[in-house]
């Protein structure tokens, strides 16, 4: 339990750091193997279990206890361990220590475990977040790769678009040319028509004026008009024959 606190508070961490810095092997440290669940077993807190296992085949279960008692009695009787005022001090401190460990041990252990778990949960959260973001990135990458495959179709469509625009342009220009040419030709035709009409009207006016001026009598008007008409017809026939020739 105390070691849990030590582990959490990291007081001995600098020693671990020192050991890690001395590692010069070329093997990589990751992934770090998980910590063992429980440490080496100890009986009564300070005697490793290995001693009991070592003495069990020869002396059974009570062997180490007898060994301990014998050693204690020997040291007391030969005064290798001297009883003085410090013995009582040590006994009191030992008693208080044992009482504190027995009473508050589980609580402190639970607290340290909770701290540990929070740390681990935070790290796990970060790791999970990183994993999800990376898998998402992988999926998007795959989607992009799929999109790339469709790029050739995109280019075909664009090419078709451009060709159509060019075609439309060309046709527009053709239309424009035709229209312009037709307009100019229509203008020339209208001009010619105007000329002929003007000549016709002028001739008619002149003929009317000269004919009416010459023949004042009303009796011979109809005759003269008929005569004029036949004359004109003959003239027209003559000019037509001349034109065809």
């Amino acid at each position, binding site marked *: *339990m*105390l*070691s*849990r606190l*030590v*582990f959490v508070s990291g007081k*001995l961490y600098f*020693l*671990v750091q020192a*050991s890690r810095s*001395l590692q010069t092997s070329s093997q990589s440290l990751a992934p770090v193997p998980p*910590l*063992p*669940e*429980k*440490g*080496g*077993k*100890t009986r009564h*807190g*300070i005697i*490793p279990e290995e001693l009991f296992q070592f003495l069990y085949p020869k002396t059974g279960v009570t062997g180490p206890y007898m060994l301990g008692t014998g050693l204690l009695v020997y040291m007391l009787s*030969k*005064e290798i*361990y*001297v*009883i*003085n005022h*410090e013995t009582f001090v*040590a006994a009191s401190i030992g008693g208080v220590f044992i009482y504190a*460990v027995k009473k508050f*041990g589980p609580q402190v*252990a639970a607290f340290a*475990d909770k701290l*540990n778990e929070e740390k681990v949960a935070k790290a796990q959260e970060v790791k999970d977040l990183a994993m999800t973001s990376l898998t998402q990135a992988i999926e998007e990458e795959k989607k992009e790769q799929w999109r790339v495959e469709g790029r050739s179709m995109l280019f075909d469509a664009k090419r078709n678009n451009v060709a159509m625009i060019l075609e439309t342009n060309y046709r527009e220009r053709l239309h424009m040319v035709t229209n312009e040419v037709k307009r100019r030709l229509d203008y020339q035709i209208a001009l010619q028509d105007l000329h002929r009409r003007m000549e016709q009207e002028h001739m008619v006016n002149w003929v009317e004026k000269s004919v009416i001026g010459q023949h004042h009598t009303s009796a011979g008007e109809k005759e003269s008009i008929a005569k004029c008409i036949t004359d004109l017809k003959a003239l027209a026939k003559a000019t037509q024959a001349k034109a065809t020739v």
Partner: protein
Amino acid sequence: MLCFPGALTQRRLGQVTLRELPDWLVLKSPRRPRDAIDMVQRGWQWYYRRYIDVKKGGVGGVAMLLAGYCVLSYVWTYPHLKRDRWRKYH
């Protein structure tokens, strides 16, 4: 009689017989100060990894260190504590 692996150099303490113990001790003793430091470092690393650097440690890890400290300090101050002995002749 258990058969132990060959060379004396490669055996650990649990595999050395009593007869070979002095030779083994001479063999394993540090020759340069650097070796002594390395031995201490390795010993501490073994102890740390076994009793302290675990997920659910007990009081044993630190308590054994304290007990060892108590014993060592008693051994070092024994010449002074000798004077408080109750018996005159032992």
